């Protein structure tokens, strides 16, 4: 399924890391949510982050995107700026009742090129049209964003990410509440990003989907439970351990589980 693709012929250990976590502890109001994460993400990785609710998955993405300051440790970005990261959050701050058509909405993905003042060149118009075609929204350019269905809106958000042309794409539960056809189309787009050598990190719930599409997985339950090849990470034993760690949450909320130092290669 996830056949090794051209630019991804990189074994993680040898590839340049695009991200490095150094003893990273994240949390809110001094309550840690993710403990002592160490390790690297190789450029070109297609990495799924899975784990029970409250495991710190979204928190980790938020921190990578630079929107949450670590309580301890740091995240090192290798060769890219924060602003270059394309980050699709679980609940967007997007006001879908805003009077804007799909074309203009998607065009905002070109911000790094056009900024606040430039107009769109012919090439850029072509790129927008192409992006809309890729996500299956061709013909809906002039629809108001408020009239789109959930699946269509998610497609539009993916088109915007596509136009951001980012080397690192962060997706937080991108297939949450959308129809199967949209999931299929958008998963194809994720594969395409991977094949283009982009690094994609996605928080996902559907383990079957992860097994099929993602070569690498990070199983998180407020600490790293396992990380590496998807098939071995998603073993019964690991999943059970993650569940236990998550359930034990109430007891140790103030006494973080610091003994288990996150793994890694």
């Amino acid at each position, binding site marked *: 399924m996830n056949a090794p693709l051209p630019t991804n012929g990189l074994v993680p250990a040898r590839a340049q890391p695009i991200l490095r976590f150094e003893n990273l502890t994240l949390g809110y109001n001094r309550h840690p949510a993710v403990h002592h994460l160490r390790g690297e993400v190789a450029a070109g990785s297609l990495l799924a982050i899975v784990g029970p609710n409250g495991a710190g998955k979204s928190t980790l993405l938020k921190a990578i995107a630079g929107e949450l300051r670590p309580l301890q440790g740091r995240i090192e970005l290798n060769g890219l700026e924060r602003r270059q990261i394309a980050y699709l959050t679980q609940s967007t701050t*997007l006001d879908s009742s805003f009077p804007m058509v799909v074309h203009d909405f998607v065009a*905002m993905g070109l911000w790094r090129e056009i900024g606040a003042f430039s107009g769109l060149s012919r090439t850029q118009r072509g790129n927008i049209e192409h992006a809309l075609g890729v996500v299956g929204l061709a013909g809906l350019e002039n629809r108001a964003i408020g009239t789109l269905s959930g699946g269509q809106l998610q497609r539009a958000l993916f088109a915007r990410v596509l136009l951001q042309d980012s080397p690192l794409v962060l997706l937080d539960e991108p297939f949450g509440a959308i129809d199967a056809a949209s999931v299929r189309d958008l998963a194809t787009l994720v594969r395409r990003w991977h094949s283009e050598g982009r690094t994609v990190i996605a928080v996902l719930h559907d383990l079957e989907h992860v097994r099929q599409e993602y070569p690498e997985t990070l199983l998180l339950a407020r600490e790293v439970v396992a990380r590496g090849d998807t098939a071995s990470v998603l073993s019964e034993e690991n999943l059970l351990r993650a569940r236990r760690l998550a359930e034990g949450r109430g007891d140790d909320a103030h006494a973080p589980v610091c003994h288990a130092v996150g793994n890694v290669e």
Partner: protein
Amino acid sequence: MIEALSDMPLLSPFIEFGFMRRALAGCLALSLGATPIGVFLMLRRMSLAGDAMSHAILPGAAVGYLLAGLSLPAMTIGGLIAGLAVAVMAGGVARNTVIREDTSLATFYLLSLSAGVLIISLRGSSVDLLHVLFGSVLALDDATLLLLAGFTSLSVVALAIGLRLFVLESCDPAFLARISRLAPLAHYGFLTLLVINLVAGFHALGTLMAVGIMILPAAAARLWVCSIGPLLLLAVFTALLGSTSGLLLSYYINVPAGPAIVLTLGALYLLSLAIGPLAPLASRWRTSWHFER
């Protein structure tokens, strides 16, 4: 020529009376400057915040009044300082405490209004108080008109330059913050434009009704069009139509001009609510028509 024109009931008050021409110029300035800001207030769901901030201007203007009487610069500077301070403080309280933004705004609004009324009554008469609360669009002097025109020019130019920023900041603020360093500039720039337009509106329509010429035309226009460019143009047009009609109404039936303008704008809004293509009434009518066929 002039005589022929002055026979026309829609023009004659403006031709005969200087104060009507001044009032018209003031309304023109507010429609061009304040109404587009009102469109963004509406789109950002900040209509009530705008209302609260217009009240927040009062104590600042009142302190200016206390120090210098009905002096334009003193009341303007006082209003600007108080408006900006409340904009920053209300946001800060909402972000950093358990008090949510609507409550935070309501508290500032109540405090400002009561403090303002109290300060003015320390020195002034109830006529002065009425002037501050309801404005004096029929008594705009040269200096005030120049101030309105200046604020309007600044506002129109800033909006033209920053339009894309303001649009994205209203539509998807977190996305803007992620991709652009200009996000804080867009946020505070907008608040600054809001405050200067509220101060301009304060001089003409008073603290209680300055927001009227912002929100009512914006809301009326929103019921007709669904993209931002036409929305801004239609809102400005609605504001011009409503404020001019309001002035004429106040002239012919001899009622206070400020409330007449706001009520006329309100009538245009109600009309849009009844027949605007995006209004619930119109769409219900169209649905039933659809089913009957």
